[in-house]
Every structure is written in C-alpha cells, then in structure tokens.
C-alpha cells in the first residue's frame, strides 16, 4: 500500500513541523513579554523592590534559569518538553503539572458535560429539521438556534447567572468552596456546562442539519422510501451510516476547539478551570505555567485536526489518492 504510506508520511511530517513551529512561537512570545516574573513574586509590583535585593534577584533568576541567553533557555525548554517536564511554577512554587492537572480536569469535565448536553439537544433536532426541511417547524428551530448562536457566550452566561442565581437563587453565585470529591465538582460544573451547551449547540445543529440534508438528497434515500420502509428505519439504517463519519470528524474538531471557546463561560462563573489559570499566570508572568497552557491549547487543536484527517482518510477513499 504505497499510497497510504506516502500519505501518512507526508501528513506526519506536516504535523511534526507544526508542533515545532508552535513550540517555538509560544516560547518566543511568552519570554519576550515586557516585564518579569520577579516583579510579582513577593506580592504586587510596587512592593517588591523593597523586598528583593540585588543578589537575591540574581539568585532567583539563575534558579529559574532566566539569566541565560534566550537561545539557551529555548534549548532547556525543548529538552524539558521532550522529557515531559513542564517546569516549575514561579508563582505557585510547585511543579507545573501539579497545578495544571486539577484545573485542566475541571475544564475537561465542564466541556465534556457541556458537549454531551449539546449533542443530546442538537442531534435529534437537526435530524428532525433535516427530515422536514423547509417546513414551519424546521424554519422555527433553525431561526431560534441561529439566534441563540448569535448571542455571545459570555452574555448567555451572564443571563444564566441573572436568571438562576439572582432571581431564583438556585445556583451559587460566587465560585467554589473547597471541593474535594467528584460530585461537588459536577454540581458546580452543571451551570456553566449548561450554558456552554446552549452556546455551542447552535453551531453543531447547523452543520449537522446541513450534512443530513445533503445526505437525504441522495438517490438511495429515495429508493429506500419507495421500498416502503418506515421513516425510522430509513433514518437509523441508511441516513446515519452515510453521514455519520464526516459528522464525527467535525464533532471531534469542535470538541478540540471547545477548550478555547469555554473561556468566556468559565470567566463569568469564576470557575477554577484552565481560563483562570491562564489569566493568573499571564498576570504574574509565570512563564512555565503560561507556556504549558498555550502549548496545550495549540496541541489540542493540532491533534484534533490530525484525528479529523485520519477519520476522513479511513472513511473516504478519495482523500487517499491526493496530496494534501
């Protein structure tokens, strides 16, 4: 199978070069930010000069490896990455992984939950709409979903807070107390997840509806209908089989991008997820943490793209023959 092998090799080379480029860009951008982590170590920037003397500063700089020239720092950085060592947080004084993982997990819980909600709403709706394309029902659902999609996610989050927390006093308004078990996390994630679901479902609904419509137009559906099969059978057996694969790869992409689009919802709810960590590490110039988060973002998108590529490769033989 010389074809497939060549295809994989070229795609792999592409993605690897993408990785390398991302790592370099992230590194450069972060380390060249004006300002220094030392300004924030002891507290706010104004207080620090009184606390840190010159020699303490130098000691700290060399401890974190920040006194070396940029290219040396880069080599250390890449070397560490290859050993999956994400460094030591300057602000939190703990290994980055120890900080990163809980926050990342909470964010993942949020987006997974939200994603599941979103699909459970948009999937059946999109099938119904596609099946009855052009009818009043379809028009109403589409208009509604597009309108909701237009509302920015932070606005939806604010609206949710207002309605449920202020008026109905159902959900806690201000963030978390110390939660340890998974049930607590789920409870706190419920609100944001629902908002996130509503925000994302518009997009998912739209493209799923489009896929289904173009699939329904195909001849074999007409054939199945003329055979007298019940609608439900047609849907389950024929329609889904044909259109599921591109939908799955699109959904995988969407899931990857969810990591980024949940930023607003997390911020409004003060949810202690990745967004909070990003903003904190940005404010306090915590290089290792900041870099790790950015890398995670970029890697997720790259990996999701790769997965989508792989899925469409397996499904559609036409993709194999070409280059790119």
């Amino acid at each position: 199978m010389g074809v497939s092998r060549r295809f994989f090799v070229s795609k792999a080379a592409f993605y690897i070069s993408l990785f390398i480029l991302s790592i370099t860009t992230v590194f450069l951008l972060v380390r060249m930010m004006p300002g220094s982590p030392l300004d924030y170590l002891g507290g706010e920037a104004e207080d620090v000069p009184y606390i840190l003397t010159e020699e303490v500063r130098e000691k700290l700089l060399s401890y974190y490896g920040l006194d070396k020239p940029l290219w040396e720092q880069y080599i250390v950085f890449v070397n560490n990455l290859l050993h999956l060592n994400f460094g030591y947080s300057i602000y939190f004084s703990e290994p980055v992984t120890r900080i990163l993982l809980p926050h990342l997990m909470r964010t993942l819980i949020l987006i997974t939950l939200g994603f599941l909600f979103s699909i459970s709403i948009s999937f059946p709706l999109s099938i119904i709409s596609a099946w009855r394309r052009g009818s009043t029902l379809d028009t109403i659902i589409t208009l509604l979903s597009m309108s909701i999609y237009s509302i920015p996610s932070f606005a939806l989050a604010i609206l949710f807070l207002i309605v449920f927390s202020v008026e109905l006093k159902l959900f806690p308004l201000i963030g978390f107390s110390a939660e340890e078990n998974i049930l607590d996390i789920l409870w706190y994630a419920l609100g944001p997840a629902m908002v996130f679901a509503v925000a994302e479902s518009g997009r998912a609904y739209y493209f799923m509806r489009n896929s289904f419509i173009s699939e329904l137009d195909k001849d074999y559906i007409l054939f199945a209908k003329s055979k007298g099969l019940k609608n439900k059978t047609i849907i389950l057996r024929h329609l889904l089989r044909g259109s599921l694969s591109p939908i799955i790869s699109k959904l995988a992409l969407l899931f990857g991008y969810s990591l980024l689009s949940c930023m607003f919802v997390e911020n409004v709810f003060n949810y202690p997820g990745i967004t909070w960590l990003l903003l904190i590490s940005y404010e306090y110039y915590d290089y290792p943490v900041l870099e790790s988060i950015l890398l995670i973002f970029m890697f997720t998108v790259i990996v999701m793209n790769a997965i989508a590529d792989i899925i469409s490769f397996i499904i559609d033989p036409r993709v194999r023959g070409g280059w790119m």
Partner: protein
Amino acid sequence: MMRFNSLKTPLVQGINLTKIFRYGLIWGEPVEAVKNVNINLLRGASLSLTGESGSGKTTLGKILLGIIRPTSGKVLFNGIDLTNPKRVPKYIRRMMSYIPQHPEEAFDPRWRLYDNIAEPLRIHKLIGSKEEEKEIIFKLAEDVSLDTSLLNRRPFEVSGGEIQRAVIASALATNPLFMVCDEPTSMLDISTQADILRLLKNIRDKLNISLLFISHDIEIASFMGFKIAVMLKGRIVEMADVDKLINEPLHPYTQGLLGIVKVEYVSSYAKNCRGCPYYDRCPVKMLPCREKEPKLKNVGGDHYVACFRY
C-alpha cells in the same frame, strides 16, 4: 519522415512525440498516452485523428497546440518551437485555435456569447473601437450561421448546436492558421452534427486553415477529407488518404472500426508490453506480433500501416 505534399513545408510538425503521464504525484504509475508519433500538417490541409477513447488523440492534439509538454520529441509551428508551453510567445497563440470537446464548457458561463466570441480579439488587442468590434462579431456570427439575436444570451440559455457555432466563431476571430477540433460533434444530436461538420469543412476550404480533426467515430472523421490517421494506445497504426483508408483498410484495428471484421478479445495483456498494441484483440495475429512492435511502413502511395502482415 512522411509528407503530405513534398513541395510545401509543413505548418505544424510533430517529431517523435512521446507523452508519459504519471497518475498521482506520489507513486506515479506511468501511462503512455502518446508514443513515437510523427505528424506533418501543411497549410490548408487537414488531418483527422480517430481511435477509441484513451488512444491518445486529445493528448496529441494538445501537444501539437503547445498546451501540454511532451516527455520527449519536438513540436514546431512554422519553425517556432512549441515544445515548452511556458515559452510560447503570445503572437504564435494568435495563429492557433482550439475547439474543446464540451461546447458548454468552452465559454465562461457568466459572460454573454458576444463577449466570449470577442475575447480573443480583446486579448490580442486587434480591434480599436467598439463599433469595429461589433461589425466583426456580427460578421463572424453570420459566417457560422449563428442567429445574431442570440449574441446577448449566456451559454446556458442557448442550445448545444448554437454554442458550438459560437465557439467556432470565436476560434475564427483571430484568423488562425491552425485549428484543433476535439470531438466537436460528440455532444450534439445527429442533424446538428451534420450542420456543424459541413460548416467546419466550408471554413477549412474557404479560409485555408490547417485543421486537426479528432473524433472517435471513424465515419465522422473521414467526412473531412484529406488524410486520416488511426490511433491506438498512443501509437499511429495506420495513416492514409481518406478514400484509400475507407475503401482499403489494411490494419486489422481499422477494419474493426469500420465494422468489416469481427473483433475478439483474446487474452489479458499488460498495458505497456512489448508487442503490437492490438495484440489482445487482433483476430489475425501472428507470432512476431507479441514480441516486437511493428513500425509504420509506407506500403505504397502514402499509405502507412504498422502491422507485421505487410
């Protein structure tokens, strides 16, 4: 070297042309579209190319136009080398035209027929004023029997025959010396086919244009008169004056095309094998046919055949 008329020098010359396509940029399985073909075309003469699909007729036509670059060999137009399409000067392009296979795709669907026909004139800046241009376009439309009221319409608003006429008009706009017609009638109905064929023949005779006429239907190809060449798997297997070829076809493949001899498909035959390209279907094959490829031989009176039986 074959010559149509040894007293004149050919307008278009193809010397030992070979084109090998590699499908897929990565693993390239080579396909010989054209192999060792020599063509000479004099001014005002015409050559018809016929053969089944995939025999290389269109590719050969495009090579002779300087659109496709041959893998080996040379193309000369009035002495100018057309072998590298990117290096062909613009004034040469003015002297040639191309009528593609699907008339509805030959024109920009967003432009009116009028603008499509006038385009070659505008590209080469041959006309000064709008009135001059209008006169010329109208005259061209008349020449090809195209109703001038249709000039304002778009390609999808007229019938196939009318588009084909418009394409021919556009091809004639710059007074070309050389014209390649690629299956100009395959997409049309029978009565329109006859009209278009007569039109093309008239044009060739009146304007002294060298015509390369391609058709998979040997009867249509022979209608144009002059010389006809039969292609199979990229090679020319027989070439002669039209009457001679129709009345006394020598190559078994030509006979098959004319319906004279029954064709049998005998054995599986690898694509680029050594012997005669017709081996797998030839009803009268002999032993040497499998090993060596027969060369084109003049068997008398400018009638060339590539077959070991002669």
